[in-house]
């Protein structure tokens, strides 16, 4: 058990650079915040349960002394029951409020200005197509300018796919016959992995792409190429 706990700790520590927790956009930061918050609240619950669990199991385990005892009958305990009904409710409210706020935030997909970049993203078995406003198309890499708002217009030509760049934000499904939108503003240059996150058939695994976030000039240049 000890070894196991050690290993768990090590694994958790190595989590500092997990992609989902290494956000490069406001959306992803908000989501990472929610993850940390819910994790914290839940760790509190786990802690309480673990302490009680280990304490009770240890203290009341069968020993030579108590082997023939008959424990007292005990119907329940009003106060205790109220505590463990109300306390979780409070904790959950603490989680629910930011959840609602951030969920509304990340669902806001309207472009805020004319500057906004629009990219059509099409999923199909088994590749992505990124189409820019000037008609330029790519498949393997999505190039975005840093610090500029982008609205992605996502549709599928066949089955359901899901567009996911962990460092830039949560995924959004790519449906046939319907358009989903996603708004992101990358705030750091770099190359981030993108993946299809909805199982879509034989080569679902291979539906990957790179998201290259570059500075404005480089982006314009690339776009004109």
């Amino acid at each position, binding site marked *: 058990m000890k070894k196991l706990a050690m290993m768990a700790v090590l694994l958790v520590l190595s989590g500092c650079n997990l992609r989902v927790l290494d956000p490069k956009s406001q959306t992803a930061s908000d989501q990472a915040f929610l993850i940390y918050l819910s994790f914290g609240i839940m760790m509190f619950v786990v802690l309480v349960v673990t302490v009680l669990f280990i304490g009770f199991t240890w203290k009341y385990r069968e020993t030579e002394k108590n082997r023939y005892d008959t*424990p007292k009958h005990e119907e329940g305990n009003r106060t205790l029951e109220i505590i463990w009904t109300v306390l979780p409710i409070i904790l959950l409210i603490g989680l629910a409020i930011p959840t609602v706020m951030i969920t509304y935030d990340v669902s806001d997909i309207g472009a805020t200005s004319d500057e906004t970049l629009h990219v059509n993203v099409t999923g199909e078995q088994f590749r992505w197509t990124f189409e820019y406003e000037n008609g330029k198309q790519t498949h393997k890499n999505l190039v975005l300018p840093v610090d500029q708002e982008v609205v992605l217009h996502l549709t599928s030509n066949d089955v359901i796919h899901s567009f996911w760049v962990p460092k830039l934000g*949560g995924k959004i499904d790519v449906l046939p016959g319907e358009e989903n939108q996603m708004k992101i503003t990358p705030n750091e240059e770099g190359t981030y992995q993108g993946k299809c996150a909805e199982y879509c058939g034989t*080569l679902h695994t291979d539906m990957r792409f790179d998201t290259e976030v570059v500075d404005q000039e480089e982006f314009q240049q690339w776009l004109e190429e």
Partner: protein
Amino acid sequence: MQFYLFGDLIVLPTDVIAAWVSVIIGAPLVLYWFTKKRYWPVVWDFATSTNHRKIGMLYIIFALLFFFRAGIDALFIRMQLVTAENEFWVFQGDKYNEIFTTHGTMMIFFVAMPLLIGLMNVAVPLQIGANDLAFPFLNAIGFYLFLTGGMIFFAAFFFNAAPNAGWTAYAPLSTYEFTSGPNNNYYIFGLQVSGLGTIFAAINMIVTILRLRAPGLKLTRMPLFPWASLITSFLILVAFPVLAIALLLLQFDRFYGATFFIGEMGHPVYWQHLFWIFGHPEVYILALPAFGIFSDIISNFSRKNVFGYTSMVIALALIGLLGFMVWAHHMFTVGLGPFANTFFAITTMMIAVPTGIKVFNWLFTMRRGVIRLQTPMLFALGFIPTFVMGGVTGVMLASAAADMQYHDTYFVVAHFHYVIIGSTVLGAFAGLYYWYPKMTGKVLDDKLGKWHFWLFLIGFHLTFFPQHLAGLNGMPRRVYDYTWEDGVFVYNFISTIGAFLMGASMLFVLWNIYKTHRTKEENVGPDPWDGRTLEWSVPSPVPEHPFEKMPVIDRRDALWWAKQEGRSLPVADHPRASPIAVRTVQPLVLSAALTILSFGFIYGWVWMQILGGAASLGFFLLRAFNDERTEAYRKEEQDDE
């Protein structure tokens, strides 16, 4: 391997060949062994019985067989994922997709469900003082429907046509246009047939629990496992018909050119709604009975009554009710909009409250008790922290915006294995060790049981804990490969080691069963665990109709109090009539008819559909004129005159 048969080119991958070879070698061995040991009369006895204990055992035996099959699938998955850029045997691309689909579907429908229904079969009637389930014949039918469905699904692999659209079979991938082979037809018919069996089992449970309780055993005096079974059965009544219709619509899309889920007029998302309106209650159908088992076991092995009985029952009911209001938490990324997403996020979080109540009640049941650490209790103890970990990741997933990061990644895979294995599988093992004496008259070896427990639990956490991190590091589920740059190798490597530990632990179960039955020891008495509930007042193994002298119950845990006071339970004067048992091969007829019918549909052979349909109608006729109650009613009428 490729060859020509009747002019068709047949391509057989090596895994299919391996499967056939092992069957061709294995089957004669098993037949020989059964013949040599003279097991056939026993087999026949079980196959034609309507007794709840025997049918329960059949459920469990076949569920365990399917468990090994689906477990081997899991090991193949883990072998393929053991390291980055790996190619294990044939399990890449479609083969990988087939194997995770088979693994998931089998584990849910043909392992977890029948394990629980089997335990309900064995224990529930005894715990409420009933001589059998209300409809013994229907019970046999239910079992054979499960077995038929399971076998149809099982067979797919041998014809190189295992389903490959995931256990969720999302449209449009699951429609004819994108998966045109017979593969997903197996999925439809396997589930349709076994689902009907599940519905029958649920009806049987409800009527049994509502009408066949011993005199004085009011609902409020009932142990918690029957309570959980009752509520679960109600969930089945609502969830499974929805699945049946979803499958029917999918069938129309696949076979008859309807376009419910595809094309310009179809809504692929409608499939997801239907599937999860079934699917989320389904996970509670898996969890609640396990909760019931743990309640009974924890109380028994702490030698104390259940703490907060009333709130336990209310919590069960609340979980069941709320379970129908949360389905769209599986669809946060579909684009239903922030209102729907937050609504379902909040209802989902609400479920944590009754669940928490249960956890604390279990803990406080142990407080001030005397905790005996025998195998069933060990599993119950392993359950509490494991399930709580799965529960808290559940709450994290409920947070809609955050779920957009977790959704369809290994984080989710870790979460649902924590809850399903934590509750259902540990619960089923606990129940198996606990009620094994009631089934067979023997107690399973405690030492081997402990080996099983520790290996399984450690293996489990090794397998699934790292998957949370793999998910957070961007590994989607249902992928057969990852790269070194992905940075998930370590997690996957540990995970594979853990999986093999779990596999090894299952060998101890086999060894234990073998060892327990090899020694020709006397059967144990009625009450090997110093129990509290009624099943421990009748002999082990239970004979048919053990409550001919029906006990009268005056309080909860009546048996325990009677034992404390050194008296036996009073006997009722005029108990109600018991269900009538019968020996019958009719369920086998239905099973054959439905197999023909299903294969007719799976391969689109109309003549076979007609044959199977006619045979099914024939079964109804057979049944209509062979009712086991005929004699009894005739006798009653003569007595009346």
